[in-house]
């Protein structure tokens, strides 16, 4: 898979199995799956729309993946992200990192999500009973990404 941006829904279990299948040197796979939840900031969500910047999106994700591969001894790293209209409870994002031992896969998966949250060109628009609105960026996401500026495999 490596990098995929798609409007179609996906099955995280099938994606995980595909990451492991065909590579017997994989000893550990860490995955993160993000879902559309029903409540955000006390408002009931009916639907979510994900806008992106075609052209830049896959390039930005590839850059984040490359950086993870440079920082940790990974066998591979995969990022899958939905765009367009999403229904409640559907998976939005799937990240999988594989390695021989678990440490690298754990750290790299977290790193990829932290960087994706602050550098990949996606924007969420929520549909609630009172209309649609853009989701605001969070400073806590910027803080989470910033800690990797000084932290890498040598110090973790």
């Amino acid at each position, binding site marked *: 898979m490596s990098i995929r941006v798609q409007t179609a829904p996906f099955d995280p279990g099938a994606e995980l199995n595909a990451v492991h299948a065909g590579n017997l040197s994989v000893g550990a796979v860490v995955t993160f799956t993000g879902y559309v939840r029903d409540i955000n900031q006390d408002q009931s969500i009916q639907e979510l729309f994900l806008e992106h910047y075609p*052209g830049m999106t896959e390039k930005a994700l590839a850059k984040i993946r490359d950086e993870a591969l440079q920082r940790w001894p990974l066998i591979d790293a995969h990022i899958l992200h939905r765009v367009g209209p999403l229904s409640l409870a559907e998976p939005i994002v799937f990240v999988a990192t594989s390695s021989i031992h678990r440490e690298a896969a754990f750290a790299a998966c977290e790193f990829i999500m932290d960087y994706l949250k602050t550098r990949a060109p996606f924007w969420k628009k929520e549909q609630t009973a009172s209309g649609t609105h853009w989701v605001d960026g969070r400073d806590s996401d910027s803080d989470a990404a910033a800690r990797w500026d000084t932290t890498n495999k040598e110090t973790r």
Partner: protein
Amino acid sequence: MLTVQFLARYREALNCESEQLPWQEEWQTLDDVRQFLVARDGVWAVLNDPRIMCALNQDVCSLQTPLKAGDELAFFPMVTGG
């Protein structure tokens, strides 16, 4: 020429997805272009967002990044994917 893209909340506020601007010799950084656009007044004040993000040729950069004629710029609000 310079191609400028606007995304998400900015695209809606400006009712503009993309614009071609004739190159101006005094432009040195993305912030110079941002200020040129803000000077149009009205809805363009949306680009005064203190948390504005930008990209040069489809790579995230800072407002202080230098640019040249022919580049593709993008201005967008903080990203909210994942």
